């Protein structure tokens, strides 16, 4: 059975069959046929104000739900503007499908108006990409794109479609199956290795779970929780993995790495077994690799075989879906009749005791002041209102690190930030995507004054759709993280980091028709945030914080993670104990 329809109609039909309910995009010349069909289609189109933000919003949607986010842009500049969002999704393994228009196939290569080699440009920005020049290929390719984006290690897929394909008429027959003979997805994990892992977990004296974004992507939070409870193993969650284990779970230590907590980094350094789950031993976590977890054997579970052994050679490599592998591991451990020896139990108790001591020695604290708003104070107040349940998006930089340190997340998919790529301007558009995906949720977009000014055009999107996002600008008048590095490593020479002109937040918000305010005194903070949350619509809260505050602890680049600088004024490195 087939129906005569246009390429654009086929495209929307395929999107509907993939369960797409929302597209973030920006129209243009060659996508006109697509937008014409969209005009009366049930799939919702969200008009952003810049294509980069369409990609970020699609990411926000995907990160908040686990579903594939969809964005679209026209040829040439529209497509090139998407690229930052594609790389961002690539680095953080976020499933999105980007649709771009291309000039007519006869014009390709002729330097036609708004022509760019989108297929070539986005090859290294995507998990896979396509150029459709024949209408008959369209349905198959669209379904392949969704399958590739969502399966295995998720990632962005771009489909570039020529205008003649969108305009052409053809017979459409639904595609129910696709065939990608070379696309290998490893899910189950090697049974023998899982058995070895179970044994190592039972025998370890100082085990530590090092869990990352893979837990979120795999939907393995319940399995993770079961594992740490079954084995009473302490756990750290990476920046990408926050919420994988609830922040207030007794086994949760905190985030490790460059701005991780003292306890988390010391635990990494002293563990004798690392159970690495959906992580990639990123440099921001490991510090100097040679000195990372020097006493630990490593069990590494990841769905991407190229990650296993990339940075650290594991003792037990397990390539598989962390949800399935953990389920099998939990079953083995639950059924095991091995009882730990008295010696082992004593060692485990001593391990927990040390971790509690490290936590007590240098806790992550919400510093406050009577005269100015400390950024940490701001995070603590947002945390109080969120209660670990709001969606929080961020950009990259100091505010991101303080938020990651001090906010609690009771579930996965609440903490949405640009981890691997570290894109400024991510937070606000990601919040837009997240709010469309989860209209029921309170969404905070915590951004710096730098990143906010990169995403200012999206205030129009927020206003236009009446999205009740609480935009909180942590405004220190600087590109704070760059300033921090200049202060610490470039002899206080603050080069090009001062952001000395910031718009009046009240007037700016009013210009878009919603409420906004600037505060700078600590006693204003709690009431202002409460007012923002009570406001049924959007709210822009500009919080002037102490301008020279630095994020601690900090592991200097190239340092070992137990050599943390714990706070100002630059104390001597704390040696490993």
């Amino acid at each position, binding site marked *: 059975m087939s129906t005569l329809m246009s390429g654009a109609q086929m495209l929307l039909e395929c999107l509907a*069959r*993939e*369960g797409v309910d929302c597209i973030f995009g920006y129209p243009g010349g060659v996508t006109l046929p697509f937008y014409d069909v969209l005009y009366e289609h049930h799939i919702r189109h969200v008009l952003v104000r810049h294509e980069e933000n369409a990609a970020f919003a699609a990411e926000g949607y995907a990160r908040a739900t686990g579903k594939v986010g969809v964005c679209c842009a026209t040829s040439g500049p529209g497509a090139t503007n998407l690229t930052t969002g594609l790389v961002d999704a690539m680095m953080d393994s976020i499933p999105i499908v980007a649709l771009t228009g291309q000039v007519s196939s006869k014009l390709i290569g002729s330097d036609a108006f708004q022509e760019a080699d989108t*297929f*070539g440009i986005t*090859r*290294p920005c995507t*998990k*896979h*990409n396509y*150029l459709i020049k024949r209408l008959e290929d369209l349905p198959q390719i669209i*379904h392949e794109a*969704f*399958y*590739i984006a969502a399966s295995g290690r998720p990632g962005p897929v771009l489909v570039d479609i020529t205008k003649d394909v969108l305009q052409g008429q053809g017979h459409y027959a*639904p*595609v*129910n*199956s*696709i*065939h*990608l*003979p*070379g*696309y*290998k*997805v490893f899910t189950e994990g090697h049974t023998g290795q899982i058995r070895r892992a179970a044994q190592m977990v039972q025998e370890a004296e100082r085990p530590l779970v090092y869990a990352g974004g893979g837990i979120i992507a795999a939907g393995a939070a319940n399995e993770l929780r079961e594992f740490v409870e079954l084995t009473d193993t302490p756990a750290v969650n990476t920046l990408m993995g926050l919420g994988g284990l609830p922040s207030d779970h007794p086994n949760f230590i905190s985030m490790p790495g460059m701005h991780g907590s003292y306890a988390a980094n010391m635990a990494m350094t002293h563990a004798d077994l690392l159970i690495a789950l959906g992580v990639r031993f990123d440099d921001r976590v490991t510090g100097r690799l040679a000195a990372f977890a020097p006493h630990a054997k490593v069990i590494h579970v990841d769905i*991407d*075989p*190229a990650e296993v*052994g*990339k940075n650290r050679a594991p003792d037990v490599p397990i390539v598989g879906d962390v949800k399935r592998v953990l389920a099998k591991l939990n079953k083995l451990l639950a059924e095991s009749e091995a009882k730990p020896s008295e010696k082992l139990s004593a060692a485990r108790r001593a391990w927990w005791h040390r971790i509690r001591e490290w936590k007590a020695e240098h806790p992550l604290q919400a510093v406050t002041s009577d005269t100015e708003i400390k950024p940490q104070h701001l995070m603590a107040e947002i945390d109080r209102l969120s209660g670990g349940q709001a969606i929080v998006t961020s950009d990259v930089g100091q505010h991101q690190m303080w938020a990651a340190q001090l906010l609690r997340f009771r579930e996965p998919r609440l903490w949405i930030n640009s981890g691997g790529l570290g894109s400024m301007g991510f937070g606000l558009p990601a919040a837009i995507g997240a709010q469309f995906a989860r209209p029921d949720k309170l969404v905070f977009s915590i951004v710096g004054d730098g990143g906010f000014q990169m995403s200012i055009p999206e205030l129009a999107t927020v206003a236009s759709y009446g999205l009740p996002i609480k935009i909180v600008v942590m405004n220190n008048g600087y590109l704070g993280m760059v300033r921090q590095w200049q202060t610490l490593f470039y002899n206080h020479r603050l080069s090009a980091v001062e952001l000395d002109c910031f718009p009046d937040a009240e007037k700016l918000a009013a210009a878009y028709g919603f409420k906004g305010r600037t505060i700078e005194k600590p006693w204003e903070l709690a009431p202002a945030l409460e007012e923002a949350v009570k406001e049924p619509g959007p709210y822009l809260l500009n919080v002037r914080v102490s301008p020279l505050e630095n994020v601690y602890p900090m592991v200097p680049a190239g340092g070992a993670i137990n050599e943390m600088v714990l706070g100002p004024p630059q104390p001597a490195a704390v040696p490993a104990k």
Partner: protein
Amino acid sequence: MLQVISLLLENKPGALMRVTGLLTQRGYNIESLTVARTLDPELSRMTIVVDVEDNQRAQVIKQMNKLINVLQATDLTDSPAVCRELVLLRVRTPQESRTAVLKEAEIFGGRVADSSPEGFAIEVTGDPEKLNAFIDVMRSYGEIDVTRSGSLAIALEAKRLKLQPPVPTRAGRAEEKVSAS
């Protein structure tokens, strides 16, 4: 160190770009690359010789295997394999050396592809060292021009090719469920 990689990949637009892009984005210099269709016209076989640090060799193979269009990537650097290359060489030679040139070509198993009063075009196949020696010898007879094909390699032990089966799309899965119930 030079790594010899054999790839079996789908013959699709952009497949070559994905493979070379993976190497160039890591700053690796490709020494040679050959690609042509296999018995199955939908597939191509590619042999790449590339300069890669020893500790990165396994990573390169894993990354190649991750490419959607690649069915199989194999590292032939240290495994039993035959490596051959073709050289086409044009040598300008005076009348008095013509016989000597032909003799030398014969020693290297070369074949004269073209003969003219100015000289010869000769084709020779062999492993890269033999071809280097041949080129050196010919250079001693006169001005030469050389084209090399780059290495072609074939593993001596068959490696089992595991292809992935078709999978249902989201709507396909839903329809399967409906028809099953």
